[in-house]
């Protein structure tokens, strides 16, 4: 009875929720049911129900293909390097920026470094292919002045991963820095005053006041980023890669796209995608659990 009363009292609240939730159900939860096709041999002509049930076949096929191990390795290496290097760069940059006392200078630098974050990889991919081109790209022109032969950055398996990692950091380090700048601004000035009285110079202050002040947020960022270890950046890779660099640059997401929508192996691609989503989900659950337990982090 009380449940019913609560429901009636709050019926406008339920209505508000469902106006939006209906889209989440249709476009997120219904597709989750669609993962059944990874256990079938889905053919569009036969439809969802009539396609043949094949059990684990798609998954065992996946585990037999050398391509699969290649894309998993690529994904882990690319995402892992992005996460580790992309973790330290914003911290160092925030600490250096924190030493700047000229406000206009600080603001200008911030304006410049945040900008790439708001551009899509279509735009940034276009810019990168332009400046990295062997045929008159400005980077190779510059290298030419030093007598270095043109490098096929986007057409060489030795260079493709470094390009991905550096350009990802170029896009995101400024934006990732914001949480640290906020944490730095939140450090109690009295701590610095006390340190000065105790005879600490700026370096010692950084070591014993500033760094401990941002360690909690560093730990939180590192923990939460664990969930992204299988996300090597579909948009970026898709806009930069080509068949020459599949060997080092093809990742799970681009592989799923090519298998599924280009080669129309719907069931196989869904099986690969599902495997990735499940592992990601588990990792993310662990990351959030850790963040909740040790940093009292809550999503809502």
């Amino acid at each position, binding site marked *: 009875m009380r*449940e019913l009363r609560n*429901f009636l009292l*709050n019926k*406008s*609240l*339920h209505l*508000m*929720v469902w106006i*939006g*939730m209906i*889209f*989440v159900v249709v*476009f*997120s939860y219904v*597709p*989750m*049911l*669609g*993962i059944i096709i990874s256990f079938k041999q889905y053919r569009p002509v036969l439809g969802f129900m009539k396609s043949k049930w094949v059990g684990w076949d798609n998954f065992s096929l996946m585990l037999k293909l050398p391509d699969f191990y290649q894309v998993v390795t690529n994904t882990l290496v690319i995402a892992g390097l992005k996460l580790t290097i992309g973790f330290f760069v914003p911290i160092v*940059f925030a600490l*250096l920026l924190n030493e700047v006392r000229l406000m206009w200078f600080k603001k*200008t*630098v911030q304006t*410049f*470094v945040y*900008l790439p974050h*708001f*551009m899509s990889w*279509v*735009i940034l*991919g*276009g*810019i990168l*292919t*332009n*400046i990295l081109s062997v*045929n*008159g790209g*400005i980077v190779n022109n510059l290298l030419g002045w030093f007598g270095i032969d043109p490098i096929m950055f*986007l*057409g060489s398996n030795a260079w493709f991963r470094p390009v991905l990692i550096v350009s990802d950091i*170029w896009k995101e380090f*400024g934006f990732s820095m*914001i949480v640290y700048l*906020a944490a730095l601004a939140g450090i109690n000035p009295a701590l610095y005053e006390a340190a000065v009285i105790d005879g600490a110079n*700026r370096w010692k202050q950084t070591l014993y006041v500033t760094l401990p002040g941002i360690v909690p947020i560093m730990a939180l960022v590192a923990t939460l980023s664990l*969930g992204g270890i299988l996300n090597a950046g*579909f948009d970026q890779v898709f806009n930069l890669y*080509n068949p020459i660099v599949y060997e080092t640059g093809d990742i799970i997401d681009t592989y*799923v796209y090519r298998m*599924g*929508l280009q080669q129309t192996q*719907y069931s196989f*691609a*869904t099986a690969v995608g*599902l495997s990735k*989503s499940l592992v990601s989900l588990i990792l*993310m659950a662990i990351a959030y659990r850790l963040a909740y337990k040790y940093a009292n982090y*809550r999503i*809502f």
Partner: protein
Amino acid sequence: MEYTSPLRKLFLGFNYIFLLLTGLLCLLPFVHVLAQSFSSAVSIASREVTFWPVEFTTASYNLIFQESKLLTAMGVSVQRVLIGVAVNMLLTVLLAYPLAKEDQRFRGRTVYAWMLIFAMIFSGGLIPLYLVVNNLQLMDTLWALILPGAVPIYNVVLLLNFFRSLPKEIGESAFIDGAGHWRTLFRIYVPLSMPAIATLTLFSIVGHWNSWFDGIIFMNDPVNYPLSSYLQTVIIPIDITAINSIEDLGLISDRSLKDAQIIVGALPILAIYPFLQRFFVKGIILGSVKE
């Protein structure tokens, strides 16, 4: 006055130079492309263009704007931003308000909230979504670009946390005075949250303008591509051949054309960037305001 040692002065000097160079490094690729887009094919071919146009010309822009496909794509993008952002913001506000309630006040709130969070971190994947959109007959319509992302869950969480930081008494007193939930939301909460809502609106504009993948998979006919998808197909694929053939000179005049298209695609973001910058730092902090 704090004593500054010579070593510290040296550090500060290097620090300023380093930060300035890094800042410029973020900006210069854009400047270079901008300069090339206004330069003649000959000066680009002779590799004279760095960060300022050489033999200034708007020929590339004249040519790309003669392409009716580009204008059509811009039209699609404008439509999708206008409708998509309106839908995004309405649903964000409608979801954030009830979910910001205490669990005791609004039973089911936690279940709903976890439904959203789960949808954010797990998905059925590309192909099942494609099949759903296909079965709903949304292919080649504007709605395929708007409805699948109608609820920006991350924004809902940010606004929800912002609503929670507002004093509860304000909403409660309005409620006791006879205002229902709808009125309380739109007359009290929304006006009080304008800075947060402005931030999320900007995020939503950027998101819709930049989205390109949904256009590629949900539009069979390229006439229906929004600008980002259109640019993706014209800028990227041609360059794949450029990588393979070092001696292809014909492509060089292509370069300024592509540059011009890149600039056209980036321009709206650059135009709202000053506003973005004013708000987004708040937006990031917004999510961390918790009791």
